C-alpha cells in the first residue's frame, strides 16, 4: 500500500463484494431452484431460499433424468461419460505432446522443423471451422457414439506441445550430457530425468485440459446420437424443451449444478496449478 486511504480501501472491498455477488447470483438461483419442486419454481416469483427437495431432485436426476417431454437418460451416466472424456483428453493430450516435444527438443532429425510447424498450424484449425468434414472422417472410421470418437480427434494439442517445448529448452544441457556419459539411452533419460522434472508443468496442464475436455460441447453434440453416450453438458441442453411449460426445471437445475461442480472444484482446489497452467499455456 502506497498511502493510507481508508475510503478507497472500503470502496475497493465494496466493488469486489458487488462483483462476487453478481458473479455468484446465477449459481445461487440455480442451486435454490434445484432444491424445490417444479410447482414451487413455476410460481412467479420463485422462492429465493433453498427448499427441502435437494435429495429427491438430485437422486431423481442422477438415476432417471427428465421424463416429461424428452427423456434424456440418467445424469449419472452422463457424468460418467464426461469424466471418461475429460480424463482421456487430459491424459491423451499430455502424453502425445510430451513425447512429441521431447523428440523435437532432444533429437536432430530431418523434417524436425516441418513437424513442429505442422503441430503449430493446428492452432488455426479449431473444430468449429471444420465441423462437417471432421464429422465425416470420424463417421467413415466408425467412431460415432464411441469414447474414441469423442476424444481422439481432440487430443492433438499445439498449446501443450509448445508448453513442453519451452520447458525442455530450459532443462540444463549438462543433464543430458551426464546421462549420455553414464550410458543412458534417450528413453532412459526421458523416464528418469525429463519426466520427473516436468511434474509441475504436467499438473498445470492437467487442470486446464481436464476443464477443456469436460466442457466440450460442439463435438459431443455432433458425435453422440445415442443418449447413453451423451456428456453432462450436452445432456442439459437436451433436457430443455422449447417453451417453459414442459421443461422440468428443478431437474435441469440439479443437472446444471452437477455438470459444473467437478470442473469448478478442480479450479478451486487446484488453484495454484490452474493459474500456472492458464498463464503458461497462453504464452
Amino acid at each position: 500500500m502506497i498511502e493510507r486511504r481508508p475510503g478507497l480501501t472500503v470502496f475497493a472491498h465494496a466493488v469486489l463484494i458487488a462483483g462476487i455477488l453478481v458473479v455468484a447470483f446465477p449459481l445461487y438461483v440455480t442451486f435454490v431452484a434445484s432444491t424445490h419442486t417444479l410447482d414451487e419454481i413455476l410460481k412467479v416469483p420463485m422462492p429465493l431460499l433453498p427448499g427441502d427437495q435437494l435429495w429427491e431432485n438430485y437422486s431423481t436426476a442422477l438415476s432417471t433424468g427428465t421424463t416429461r417431454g424428452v427423456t434424456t437418460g440418467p445424469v449419472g451416466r452422463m457424468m460418467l461419460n464426461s469424466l471418461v472424456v475429460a480424463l482421456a483428453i487430459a491424459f491423451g493430450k499430455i502424453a502425445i505432446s510430451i513425447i512429441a516435444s521431447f523428440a523435437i527438443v532432444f533429437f536432430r532429425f530431418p523434417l524436425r522443423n516441418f513437424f513442429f510447424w505442422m503441430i503449430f498450424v493446428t492452432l488455426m484449425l479449431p473444430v468449429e471451422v471444420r465441423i462437417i468434414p471432421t464429422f465425416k472422417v470420424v463417421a467413415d472410421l466408425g467412431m460415432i457414439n464411441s469414447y474414441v470418437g469423442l476424444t481422439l480427434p481432440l487430443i492433438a494439442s499445439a498449446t501443450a506441445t509448445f508448453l513442453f517445448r519451452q520447458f525442455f529448452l530450459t532443462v540444463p544441457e549438462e543433464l543430458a550430457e551426464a546421462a549420455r556419459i553414464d550410458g543412458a539411452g534417450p528413453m532412459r533419460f526421458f523416464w528418469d530425468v525429463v519426466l520427473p522434472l516436468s511434474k509441475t508443468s504436467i499438473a498445470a496442464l492437467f487442470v486446464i485440459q481436464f476443464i477443456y475436455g469436460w466442457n466440450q460441447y460442439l463435438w459431443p453434440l455432433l458425435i453422440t446420437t445415442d443418449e447413453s453416450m451423451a456428456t453432462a453438458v450436452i445432456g442439459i441442453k437436451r433436457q430443455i424443451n422449447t417453451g417453459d411449460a414442459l421443461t422440468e426445471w428443478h431437474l435441469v437445475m440439479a443437472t446444471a449444478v452437477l455438470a459444473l461442480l467437478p470442473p469448478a472444484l478442480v479450479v478451486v482446489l487446484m488453484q495454484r496449478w490452474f493459474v500456472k497452467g492458464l498463464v503458461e499455456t497462453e504464452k
Partner: protein
Amino acid sequence: MEKRVVFRSAWLPYALVAPQITITIVFFFWPAVQAGWYSFQLQDAFGERTQFVGLANFAALFRDANYLESFKITALFSALVAGLGIAISLLLAAMADRVIRGALAYRTLLIWPYAVAPAVAGVLWLFLFAPSIGIVTFALRALGIHWDWVLQGDQAMLLVVIAATWKQISYNFLFFLAGLQSIPKSLIEAAAIDGAGPGRRFWTIVFPLLSPTAFFLLVVNVVYAFFETFGVIDATTQGGPAGATQILVYKVYYDGVKAADLGGSSAQSVILMAIVIALTVVQFRYIERKVQY
C-alpha cells in the same frame, strides 16, 4: 535457442512424434483440405451428384443478405463481449490488487466461472431471464420493462452477451491481476511522492503498462466470442429470434448440419479459417515482440 547436446537415433524421434502427427493429419489437415474442396462444389439435395462450381458458393454467400447480416451480428457480439469483459475485469483486478485482507478469498470467488461450460453458462442465464418464470424477468417487469427475448432480437442479443461475458470475466481477471502485480512498486511510489493521486497514477502509469495485457486479452476475447460461444448460443437462443443472434460459427453449424447445405457451409468454413489465421498471426506477431526467452 537450440540444444547442443542431443541424442541420435534413426527411428526413435519419428516414433515419438508419430501419434501427434497422425492425429493432426487425420483429424485436422485432411478435414481442412476437404472443407476447401467441398467449398468449390455444389451437391444436389440427395447427396448423389456433385458438381464443380468454382467460386459460385462464395459468390452466393456474399450476395446472401443473411450471411452479411451474420457478419454484422458477429462483429457487434464480439465487440460487446470483449469490451464489457475487459472493462469489468480490469475494474475488479484493479480493486483486488489494492486490497490486502482477503485477497485470496476474493480471487477464489471470482475465478470459478472459468470452469463453467459455455452451454451451462447459457442455461443458468436462460433460467434467470426466462420470459414467463425467470426471476430477473419478474424484477424487470416490476420496473416496468417488458422482457421477452424469445420475440425481441436486441434482448436476445443482450442475454447471450451477458452469459458469454460472465463466463469470460474470470479469465481476464486473472491476467489483469498478474499484470498489475508485475508492475514495479517503485514506479507507483515515485508517482505518489510526486503527489499523484490513485486515479492519476492508474491512468498515467498503471494503464499504459497494462496495455500489452489488454491487447492480448482483446485478441483472446475476440477469438472466444467468435468460436467458443457456440455453446452459449445453442443452449439459449439457437440463433433466434429471426437470426438476431446467429453468429458466423452458428451459421456454419446450422447450414451444414441442420440445413445440409454442404457447399455453402464449407465455403463459410473456409472464410472462418481465414479469420482464425489472421487472428492467430496478429496474436503471435505481438507475442514474439513481448516475450523474451
